[in-house]
Structures are given as C-alpha cells and as structure tokens.
C-alpha cells in the first residue's frame, strides 16, 4: 500500500504515482543556484565557487567556502527547525528573533568573566554580587529556561484563549524585545568565560554547524517516527478531526510552542557565544528568515506539510545565496533586492511543480 506524500512529511516516495518526494525539488533548486553561481563566477571573477581552483586545500573543494555557507545559516537554522514544527502544526511563531535577543542578554549575564586584561569586567552585570566565572551549565540552563517560559506563554495563549497564533506571538515578539532592552538598559554584555565561548567557537569553529545538523537529524526522526510527530502533522492537516480522534490538541500545541521557544533560546546561546557578546538588538528579523527557510524547504503555511530535511535545504539555499553574492562581489545595494527575488522564485517554482504533479495524478 502506497503512502501519500501529504500528511507525513519526510522523504516518502509514492511508488504508485512515481512521484518524487518534495524535498528533491528543493535540493534541485539548491543545485541549480550553485550551478548559476559557478557559471557567473567563471565569467565574472575567474574563480570557482565551490571547487578549489587555487589549490589551497587538500580536497578538491574550497573547504573554507563550504564551511562558511553552512556556518552563517546554522544559527537561524536552529530557529528554523523549531519554526518548522510550529508551522506544520498549523500555527506560526513571530517571536523567535526577540526570544533570541532576550535570552542572549539574560544568559550572557551569567556567563561573564570577573577580569578582563587584569581589570574588573567593565560590562559585568552581576559583578557586584560576585556571580562571575560561573560554571557554564548555569547560563545554559538559564537561557533554555527563558526560552521555555516564552514558549509556554505562547502555547498557553494560543491553545486556551484561541487568539490567532500570529497575534499571540506578535505580542511576545514585542514584549521579549522590550525585556532584552530593559535588562541592562540597552548596554551590551560582553566578555564571557572560555567554557561559554566554546558553545559557539568549539570544534575549531564547527560547533554551531554540529549543533544545527545534530538537531536537524533529531527533529527529523521525531517528526517522522514518533507519536509526537504524527500528532503534529494531524493537527496541522485538520485540527477538528485530530481533536475528535482523541488527540489532546491543546496540550500538544503548548508543547510545540515550548519546543520552538527553547530552540530559539539555544540559538541565542550559540549566537552570543560565537560573538562573545550579547546585544539587545540581536536576532532582529531572524524569525522571518527562519520562516522563509522553512517555506522554501516545502513547509506549507496552511499546515500539515513539510519536513525538517526540506528546511535544512532551504537554509543551505540561503547560505549559498549570501556567499554567492560576496563571491561575485555584487554591489551591496543590489544584494537585498536580488535575495528577495530569489526567495520568491524558489517558492513559486516549488508551487508550480506541486500543482503539475497534482494535476497529473
């Protein structure tokens, strides 16, 4: 018996209809964009985009470029994983970026060193209480707790007061940003301990990538093979049917938003650690980038469709575009316009292929 593509996500191959899984479309778009940059690179700058034309690395690839393509989207990618499951469940989360900002400020306050260059830490928030040089587990727990609280509030509002997720998370977006600014009255918080810095800089700078890919694998397995995953897709496909079949929809929604909040908090820890600073303006617009990555990756905004694998490909498309522009030395003023165009084109292409496939079936 063939599984249908709808409703289960992941790499399902519908043998009876000879239909490609959706994720292959997105991977195809990624390959296409890489080829375009490769061609333009040969024409305009005389260098290869992905391959090591100057012989600087051991492998045939330009390892540093591959590294930066994934690294620069890893942090938003972590958020995108959380947002993916939220959108699949039929909701939306606009508060991720602000949760990043608030969590970064609060967690970093507990991760500071006592002395910088032989003088007391000029940015020490809790210096006067002596809460400096704390073991790294403390800022991590504090940070994840912030995400937990924000996510629970989002989930409870959406599940039990029935206000639209757009509005509830919009409120959290504004409030959390206010918390980020209020926390130290707008002052940035810097100079963390080496242990905390390892979160974003460890493994020779590969830590954010490892965390992103690790979480992606974990959540792909969760969404595909666990009851939690099946319920998420069910609620997104048809919430009333899910409720009537005995799924505890309200509790599940709280869980979904809580997980999204905690993933945003984790992204904040990686971001502030990587930059060795926390600023109240961190994370602005990250939620929109995360949603864009998910949508490009095949997640449907009306819920019930999509997968983490697709989101990862969507994130890679973003990474390729950013690196590609710098590679081609595209004038800074054109970059944002072109990026917007590519995002829309990728989604239109995906929609068109799905419509064709649906008409053929």
């Amino acid at each position, binding site marked *: 018996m063939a599984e249908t593509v709808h409703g289960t996500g992941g790499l399902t191959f519908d043998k009876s209809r000879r239909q490609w899984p959706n994720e292959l479309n997105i991977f195809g778009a990624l390959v296409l964009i890489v080829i375009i940059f490769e061609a333009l690179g040969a024409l305009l700058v005389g*260098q290869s985009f992905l391959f090591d034309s*100057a012989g*600087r690395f051991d492998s045939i690839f*330009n390892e*540093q*470029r591959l*590294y*930066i393509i994934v*690294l*620069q989207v890893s*942090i938003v990618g972590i958020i995108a994983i959380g947002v993916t499951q939220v959108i699949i469940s039929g909701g939306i989360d606009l508060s991720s970026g602000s949760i990043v900002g608030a969590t970064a400020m609060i967690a970093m306050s507990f991760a500071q060193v006592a002395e*910088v*260059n032989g003088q007391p830490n*000029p*940015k020490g928030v809790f210096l006067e209480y002596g809460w400096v040089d704390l073991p790294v587990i403390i800022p991590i727990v504090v940070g994840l707790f912030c995400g937990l609280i924000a996510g629970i509030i989002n989930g409870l509002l959406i599940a039990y007061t029935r206000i639209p997720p757009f509005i509830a998370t919009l409120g959290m977006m504004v409030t959390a940003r206010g918390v*980020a*600014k209020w926390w130290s*009255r*707008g*002052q*940035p918080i*810097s*100079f963390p301990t080496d242990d905390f810095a390892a979160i974003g*800089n460890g493994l020779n*700078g590969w830590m954010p990538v490892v965390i992103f890919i690790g979480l992606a694998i974990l959540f792909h397995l969760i969404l595909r093979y666990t009851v939690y995953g099946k319920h998420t897709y069910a609620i997104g496909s048809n919430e009333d049917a899910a409720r009537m079949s005995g799924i505890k929809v309200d509790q599940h929604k709280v869980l979904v938003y809580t997980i999204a909040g905690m993933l945003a908090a984790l992204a904040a820890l990686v*971001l502030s650690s*990587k*930059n*060795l*600073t926390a*600023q*109240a*303006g*961190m994370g602005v617009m990250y939620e929109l980038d995360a949603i864009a990555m998910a949508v490009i990756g095949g997640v449907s905004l009306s819920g019930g469709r999509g997968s983490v694998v697709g989101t990862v490909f969507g994130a890679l498309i973003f990474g390729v575009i*950013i*690196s590609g522009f*710098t*590679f081609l*030395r595209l004038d*800074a*003023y054109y970059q944002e316009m072109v990026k917007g165009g590519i995002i829309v084109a990728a989604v239109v292409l995906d929609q068109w292929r799905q419509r064709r496939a649906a008409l053929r079936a």
Partner: protein
Amino acid sequence: MRRLLLALTASAAMTTGATAENIGVTMALFDDNFLTVLRNGIQELADGMDGVDVQIEDAQNDVARQLDQINNLIASGVDAIIVNPVDTSATEAMSAAAQSAGVPLVYVNRQPINLDSMPDNQAFVGSNEIESGTLQAFEVCKQLRAAGKGDGARAYLFIGELQNQSAIQRTKDIHDVMGMDMCNFITLIDEQTANYQRDEAQDLMTNWLSAGEAFDAVFSNNDEMAIGAIQAMKAAGISMEDVIVGGVDATQDALTAMQAGDLDVTVFQNAAAQGSGSLDAALALARGDDIPQVVWIPFELVTPANIDSYLARN
C-alpha cells in the same frame, strides 16, 4: 467658593510650570551601544540640575514613530525637544512641526539634512563625520607605511547600514584619503555592508577569506564590525600583527581588543559630550538665549599610544 478653588488650582499649576523645565527627547534606538552612552549623558546632566526633567522616548528605528513622538511631546507642552533622528533625510518634517508650535528643537549626533536652513530656535550638536573616516584612514595609511607596505597594500572595507549618513560619509572619507598621493598605494579589494553588526561582519570576513586574497588592512565603519572581522581572522589562523585593523567609536569592547593587540586604530566619538551638549543647547533655546546653531564636538583618534586616557570614557 468655587471661584476661589479655581483660582488656587490655576495659580498652583502656573507656579509648578514656571519652576520645572521639561525637555522631551526622542532617541533613534535604545539598544545601540553608542546611543545608550549618549542617552546616559543627557540623563546624568539632567539629574544633576535642579528643576530640569527629561522625558526620553525610544523611536525604535521607525521614522513615522519618531514624528508621532515629537507631536506628542509638543502636545504635552515640553519646553524644548532633543531629537536623535532615525533618518537624517526626514528631518524637514520634524523641524516644521516644532517650528509651527514654537517649540525649540535640537538635533543630536546625526546630521539633519536641513542643517543650513534650520529655523532660528533650532540647533545641531554632533560630530563631523568627515573627521571620523579621515582620521581613521590616515592613521591606517601611516601604520601601513611604518610596516613597510608603502609600495602597495590591499584592504577590505566594512560599510555600516547602507542608508545611514555616518556610514556613507565615513566610507567616502576612506575613499578620499586613498585617493590622495600620500595614501594611493592602498587598493580596495572589496567593500560590503555588515550593517554595523558583529555577527554579520564575522560571517562576511570568513566569506572574504574563503576567496583566498592576500590583504594587509581592514577598514570598518564601526568597532563592532572590526571586532567581528578580527574574530573571523583569528579563527582562520591569521596573526593580527600582519593586518592593520581600523574601527570607529572606541567602545569598551574595542579598547579591550586594542589592548590585546588586535585592533590598531579607532576613533573616539564623545557620546556623553554630545548628550550633555544637546541638553545645554535645548535649555538655552528654551530660555531664549542666543547660541550658535551648529556645535561640533571633535572626534579623537585612539591608538595604542594614547589608549589609556580613553579607557573610562565610553
């Protein structure tokens, strides 16, 4: 009896109005490092004065919100308004609103586009961005010569926000200095924006490094981007002794990087003096005094040679 009560409350209201001076302030951003120091400068000066109250609003980088805030402040009867413009090309509307209500207005830190045609009871207190980029570029040029690169040096340039007047002017300054005979041995490999953000600059620098071009210097429109570039270069194993890095602002984080030998040049912008200067100007205008309409607070070059006097300033 009622008339007596009315007269009493009226006279009470008038006396409280006469002794306290209310100054309204609208800041472009609350979560910006530099602007926070500026805001604190205004607040501390006001706290130290008797009978002066400041009400500080956050425009959250929204031009429309800032104009609304100005109108609200006018409506609540402040004696003068201090504006840190979100968009320096949108200041005509703000000047017009204040002028038609007869409320004095002082622009601070960001140069309004109508600087030469401001009404009589309006002023500008800030630093000239022509100085910042020029001081930085000349010093980088000097240090490159001293390092023996005088026969040819290559550099990268980090631009701030593309629509920001400071970023545009500082970038232009750097180009102007590189065009002079003294410094035209420096060529620019590429210039891109990192939006004044440390994380964007870090990723951008890593992108540039993946192209494998040899370079000797990094110009940056602000310290945050310079620090991001330094982090990326260090992660790639490049020694900071081989690269001259220049920023602007002289923030605490930047001075720490300079002490560690990573950052070579920065320029101190006296945020606190701009803040207190703008409050002084606003009070003077409110009291009807005559003051110069443009007050320039000088930028100051900061290098490892004179870093000690700047450690406590920002």
